[in-house]
């Protein structure tokens, strides 16, 4: 596979920085990105498509009199396009207004190393091989139960690299690979069609378990066939990683971002050292977690990634910072600047938001629930109040637990509450942490959540 080499990308970034300074920028930063993705797609139970996407680009950020301008282009073979981009960044800065809180771009610091983020086997994988991965998954689902119908999914790999340089001498480079496979399935029996049940596996090295994904999607779909109504009441919930990802992304993860705190958009303002969750809850943001899906050495503005303690046994310890938010408070960035490739300026984002596992096995956690629900998929979490943490969502579906076992599922069950109250009501955490997007988390047992039956 032909990719841009480290030296080539760094040189492109450094040249853009010096050209911007020559054209009158007070400070300049250039970010060069390459992404190559190969995938095969499943539609209605068969593999119907294959795709290969190559995306490269350059983003240039400059300051002129403390006003910030940014421009990008995806045409990087052309010197003219690059020149033009630099000129546009400068003109944007000149049109903009000075920001008195702007205290400059970050300074150079040594990078830690990141483990298990690149696998040559993924890099070399072809779409035919991915077809094999997808077939294993499809067959596993189909063979599990004949009531199961795989709907969509696929298998894909990506190679991502980026280089960043700025006028303070930063020169960072990072590359990584990722492989993932996913399957969505329904089960049908008579006139009953279950909600879509979904499983996936994503890894940085070539060890996805396609068979497990297929079997698990099938198991969930079949277990959703038997439905019964449940009553409106206050109950115990096991939140699986799917549910946690939905609930936390728009609420807790926002609440620990320093810009939310500084802008009065976080209920955690002024709460460092205060108890914000049950004692069972310890959370790190770990940009260096070995093999983490968001692990890397360099953040979106060239600051070293790091491991930051956010919540320690329920007590709030720290927030997530980029360079701008940190300098506003006279602190150091926690390496949490994130970019959408070359298309955007840096924003504060969690890396691997790691809720530390407990000691109980998942089966044991479940076996101790006398009466409750287990929640996988949620709908509507993005309509939560991102500031207050109030949510009112639908479980699609919810599974009823009685005497430690799943007895049936129930559709249209709404869960309502406040995510910050939920965190205080966590009574146990299982040991089964897994990677899901920016979350690394185990199952959580939560007490006293209001559920509205249908």
């Amino acid at each position: 596979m032909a990719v841009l080499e480290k030296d080539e990308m760094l040189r492109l970034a450094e040249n853009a920085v010096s050209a911007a300074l020559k054209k009158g920028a007070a400070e300049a930063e250039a970010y060069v990105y390459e992404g190559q993705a190969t995938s095969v797609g499943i539609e209605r139970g068969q593999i119907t498509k294959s795709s290969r996407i190559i995306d490269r680009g350059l983003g240039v950020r400059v300051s002129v009199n403390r006003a910030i301008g940014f421009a990008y282009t995806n045409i990087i073979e052309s010197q003219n396009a690059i020149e033009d981009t630099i000129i546009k960044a400068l003109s944007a800065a000149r049109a903009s207004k000075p920001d008195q809180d702007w205290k400059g771009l970050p300074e150079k610091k040594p990078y830690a190393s990141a483990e298990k983020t690149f696998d040559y086997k993924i890099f070399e994988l072809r779409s035919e091989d991915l077809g094999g991965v997808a077939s294993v998954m499809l067959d596993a689902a189909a063979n599990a139960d004949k009531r199961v119908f795989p709907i969509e999914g696929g298998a894909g790999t990506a190679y991502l690299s980026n280089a960043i340089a700025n006028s303070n001498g930063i020169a960072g480079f990072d590359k990584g690979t990722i492989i993932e496979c996913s399957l969505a399935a329904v089960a049908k029996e008579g006139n009953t069609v279950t909600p879509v049940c979904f499983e996936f596996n994503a890894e940085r090295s070539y060890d996805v378990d396609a068979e497990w994904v297929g079997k698990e999607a099938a198991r969930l779909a079949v277990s959703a066939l038997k439905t019964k109504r449940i009553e409106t009441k206050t109950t115990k919930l096991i939140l699986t990683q799917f549910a946690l990802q939905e609930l936390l992304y728009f609420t807790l993860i926002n609440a620990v971002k320093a810009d939310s705190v500084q802008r009065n958009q976080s209920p955690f303002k002024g709460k460092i050292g205060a108890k914000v969750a049950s004692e069972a809850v310890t959370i790190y943001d770990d940009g260096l977690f070995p093999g983490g899906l968001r692990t890397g050495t360099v953040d979106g503005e060239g600051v070293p990634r790091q491991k930051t303690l956010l919540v320690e046994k329920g007590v709030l310890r720290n927030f997530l910072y980029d360079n701008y938010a940190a300098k506003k408070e006279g602190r150091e960035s926690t390496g949490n600047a994130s970019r959408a490739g070359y298309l955007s300026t840096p924003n504060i984002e969690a890396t691997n938001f790691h809720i530390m596992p407990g000691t109980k096995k998942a089966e044991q956690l479940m076996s101790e629930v006398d009466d409750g629900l287990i929640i996988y998929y949620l709908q509507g979490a993005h309509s939560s109040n991102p500031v207050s943490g109030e949510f009112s969502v639908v479980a699609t579906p919810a599974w009823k637990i009685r005497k430690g076992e799943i007895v049936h599922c129930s559709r249209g069950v709404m869960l309502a509450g406040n995510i910050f109250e939920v965190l205080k009501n966590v009574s146990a955490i299982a040991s089964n942490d897994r990677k899901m997007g920016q979350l690394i988390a185990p199952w959580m047992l939560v007490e006293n959540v209001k559920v509205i039956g249908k």
Partner: protein
Amino acid sequence: MKDILSKINDAAVHKFGAEYAELRVQNLSKTMLTLKEGRVEAARQGIESGVALRVLVNGAWGFASVGSFNAETLMSAVSDACKMAKAVSARLKTPIRLAETKTVEDRVQVKPKKNPSEIAMEDKIKTASSINKAILGYDRRVKSCTIDYLDLTGTNLFANSEGTCIEQDKLYVWSRITATAVKNDVFTFSREEIGSTAGYEVFDAETPEIIGKRVAKRAIEQLEAKTPKGGRFPVVLGPNVVGVFVHEAFGHLAEADLALAGGVLASNLGKKIASNVVTFYDDGTINGAFGSFKYDDEGVPAQKTLLIKDGVVTGLMHNRETAQKFNVAPTGNARAEDFRVEPIIRMCNTFMAPRDCSFEELLEGIRFGYYFKSFRGGQANVDGTFQVGIQEAYEIINGEIGEPVRDASISGNTLETLFKVDAVGKDFELGPGRCGKGQTAFICDGGPHIRVREVTVGGSA
């Protein structure tokens, strides 16, 4: 460029074994702004240019995307795409075929009164700053305000192996405005979106003062609002909530790809699934609306599609692939966000048709219920479960609007809920939005005020 495209399409069909090939060339410029409490975070400008190539070989799709117009690069990309499609086709049980369409040669030009590409960055910053001022100046309890602005201009060129060749200008102006207010321990949140394919003149009607006041007023009113009771209640929905219901709860089910993927509508075509007063359309031809265009990304003209007529399902939204499966004509709903992705079935402007009730008539007879005026977000599952979060709501007590309610949401099963629509208003509003289905699409949705006999309301703890 057109010569290169036709050479590549020819090579795909005559040399690399494709039965169909298409190329989409994109040449777009974007301007973006983010203001936080009036501070310009970064003024941004970008170029996104590239080519998407899609081929059908032995009934399987191959797709490639490259950020280059170089003829050699494109030739090697199309050869790879054909090879990949061929490899995939080996396991295919049901090969993909496409519905026939007329070949088209056209040049579509936009003629905005105010072309955003000709408006200086300073003026765009000025508009956003005025919105910010209107919001933060409304009340001291408004604590934060974020304004995102985007405009996109340029040209797309579409050419396929059947002889269709369309050059189409693109123009979008969009802004999202959010504000939060705080009083003691109560945090409230309010958002609004503006979107148009007409031009920058959208801000002449939706002036910064009007938008700003609407967003700020809602955040402040919610500070005093109560939380809703959970349970099942009669509700009146405003056009904004009806729109998101039509789009999320019904519209996605009427996308033929999702209908085929186990959705509940495939088996309900021609059947009654809603009360008599329910009529839904998807219409890509409304002038200036955020979801409008002349041709979709398969070169099929946009059209007005009747989805439900008087409670009966009359049609689905199709691309050429699903149209062939259902043996109907494609409806012009194949859209790709950009050259990096393949076109998929998307809505355009989706809405409920108005009838004859006044707002007062809708409230009449409700002893206790809710008036849901504006939504925060919505989502649906192919089994027909939907959820809509509400950002502006009021109690209805004895047929009158009562006190404000915050952080409510509604949920139910789409088909059950459609039968419970028992009265439809005579007013009509269409509003812009963005829809996520792996890719982002610019859309509109809307309708009149309606009454639903009963829906599940998620209350707070």
